[in-house]
């Protein structure tokens, strides 16, 4: 590229450095943005675990930022309106969509997880949040936060999905807070 520019007519020779500057500038910007994406991803990525996986890893997860999903057990939901603290237990369900479908769909999996006394359960604590409209028995909870030393999951964000009501249509989910 530079060689042809050197031997070519003057018109081309004056043009090429401009083109080179464009390419270099573009590459620099693209590189910076890729670096930005990669480094932010490394800092903010959250691993998605099932209740079984969290229980199996025990204390090794304490303090790390992660996401977990499970079936809400209705009778364990408590809410302290003074401190706006929600606590509830959720039972293990598979994280994998394929496994969910194999087991008969989300609604059935949630139902079975809640009535199965041998399913592993994880206690979730959510501070400073209104009680979400969709938090009820057999809802799927997707929580984002950290594992505490005490084996409880401290969630900053709580997403809920209730497939039994609106299994065919419409947004079957609302955010519990941001």
């Amino acid at each position: 590229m530079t060689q042809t520019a050197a031997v070519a007519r003057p018109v081309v020779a004056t043009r090429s450095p401009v083109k080179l500057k464009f390419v270099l500038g573009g590459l620099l910007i693209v590189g910076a943005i890729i670096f930005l994406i990669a480094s932010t991803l490394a800092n903010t990525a959250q691993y998605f675990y099932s209740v079984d996986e969290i229980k199996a890893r025990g204390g090794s997860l304490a303090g790390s930022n992660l996401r977990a999903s499970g079936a809400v057990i209705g009778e364990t939901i408590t809410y302290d309106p003074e401190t706006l603290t929600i606590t509830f237990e959720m039972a293990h369900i598979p994280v994998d969509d394929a496994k969910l479908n194999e087991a008969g769909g989300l609604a059935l999996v949630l139902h079975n997880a809640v009535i199965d006394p041998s399913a592993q359960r994880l206690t979730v604590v959510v501070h400073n949040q209104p009680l979400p409209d969709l938090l009820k028995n057999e809802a799927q909870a997707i929580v984002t936060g950290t594992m505490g030393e005490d084996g409880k999951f401290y969630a900053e964000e709580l997403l809920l999905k209730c497939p039994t009501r609106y299994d065919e249509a419409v947004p079957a989910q609302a955010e519990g807070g941001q």
Partner: protein
Amino acid sequence: MLAYLGYLSLVLALGATFYAALMAGVSIWEARGPRAARRAAGIDPATLESARRAAFLALPLLTLAALSLIAMLVTEQYQVAYVADVTSSSMPIYLRVTALWGGQAGSLLFWAWLMSAFTGTVMLRKWEADRELMPVVIVVTMITLGFFIGLTVFFENPFVLLWQTRAGEVVQAMFQPAGTLALVPADGRGLNPLLRHPGMIIHPPMLYLGFVGFVIPYAFAMAALFYRRVDTQWIKTTRRWTLTGWLFLSLGLILGGRWAYDVLGWGGYWGWDPVENASLIPWLTATAFLHSVMIQEKRGMLKKWNMVLIILTYALVIFGTFLTRSGVLSSVHAFAQSAIGPAFFTFIGVTFVASMVLLFREWDHLSSETQFEGLLSRESAFLLNNLLFVAITASVFWGTVFPMISEIFTGQKITVGPPFYNQVTGPQFAALVLLMGVAPLLAWRKSSAQQLGRQILIPFVASLVLVAVLFAFGITNPGALFGFWISAFVAGTTLLEFYRGTAARMRTTGENALVALSTLMARNRRRYGGYTIHLGVILITIGVVGTTFYQEETQGRLRLGEQLTLGRYVMVYTGLDEFEVDDGRIVARASVEVYRDGQMLGELYPRRDYYIESQQPMTIPGVRSAVEDDFYVLLVEWESVGADAATFKIYVNPLVNWIWAGGLVFIVGTLVAAWPESEPRRRVVLANAPARA
């Protein structure tokens, strides 16, 4: 019966699109051969006319299908599974009409219907100027439309009926299965309460119109590639279509934010939810496209790039629809798991590969007519603008699909949340806004630094003074200061452009300021419409900076007469009512008095609606809006008996209304840019142009 009429229209519409695509294909086949021969032979008018009529026919047929469904929704025909799913007898008529897009099957039909309105209009307009392109335009639009109609016919039929076997089992089928009786439920399940909001009534149609609008420029681009007519004609023909699609997509995004703010009760308007991202991504590439076509029109450059952008926009529109509907991602908007996922994936793959093949076949003919001359020029500013738009697209896309990709490659689902998007796109958006202030000042071909320096001197100094003042008033967050500085600087350079143009006109024509400004804008609609859009973006930026850096929140449990303080605000709990409304809600409504600096501002009524039939509560905030901030209160919990204590959560969202105001300015700017030019010479041409949908 209406269900059969609707279904029959759907099937016929599918047949019409198939026939139109086939006949258009035949006319392409007949006219094949080298260019000269093709021109001599021409396209057989009869074949093409037949294709055109069939393509138009999809519009009345889909209208009939949609109207049948609406009629059944309104008249409570619960034997139709879809009607039973999304309506109930307690819903008012207007909500029953909007239930057309409240569920998967109905909204797919609605999508197809809106698209047929666009394609139908294309078929109706006089198309002498683009006659040569039309066969391919018909093939592309009819395949896309046929795909969506096919989804409703084969996978998500909105007209399917409910039947019951003797054993009591419920079956869904179009025609009565043997040994069953018609099942007519006494009442339906009702529309999801979250969708019972005015914002929700217009937000989906706007987004859909935006989505389907981009099919038209895409189809013309493909036709231009196919016929090797890669000049700028296709861009000129589709400019207004592109702007219309873009206008609706922008409206959809703004209204979606407003709906989230009013209904979802978390004090925010944008949550980087996968489906929000899915509608933002095509908007970003479309915005890049709108900018970069200007270089092609002015300088004959970036032809390949424009093709890539319109192909990407189309693919991302379909991809966005796929994300929303396949249930592959967990989201506020997600429809349940559905069988249409693989069909979508195949369609996206096939159209994308076909587009790329066409593009690479023509690669050498798409060379630029001119070269970049200076690093500091309007062209390079546009180039940087495009680079940033595409980089933001890539960032958001990557974050959205990352859970799927990580699961495929590592078996471990890894997700990213709002912090990722904010940190990655924040600096890129900031750079883009800054560029927005400088780019219009740069000359085509080459600018000098001195020239630019002279032009930006006043806004630059003024914006620095403003930042100093803000700092003196206690705004010390570096991010916020930087955001306000950019906004002030860009507002300054943009307003100065209006001022310069107006002043020049006043000097030469002697008009007064108002007349000069309006004539200036009317004569240069694209340019000043664009600048108006930029002003809207600045207002939105100010709002985003305010809410991002200065949102405050607190909560507390109050007895009657007790108060809660947040910043300058004091809120007093004065009462609670519980009552039943005849549309099936039990409402708990609190009354609170809001004071600022000791001054009473008024009463607010945050409430919780409990929908009896769907057993779902819905939290509606009480909001007091002002230019400087919103006071936003949620009723969290209350004691039913005695009602003397309740828990509230309150937010103060500074400058949030600037976002909505900016949205309005943005839309006005787009209308100015898209409005037909008024000179008589051009009116003749435009009388044949498509009506704005």
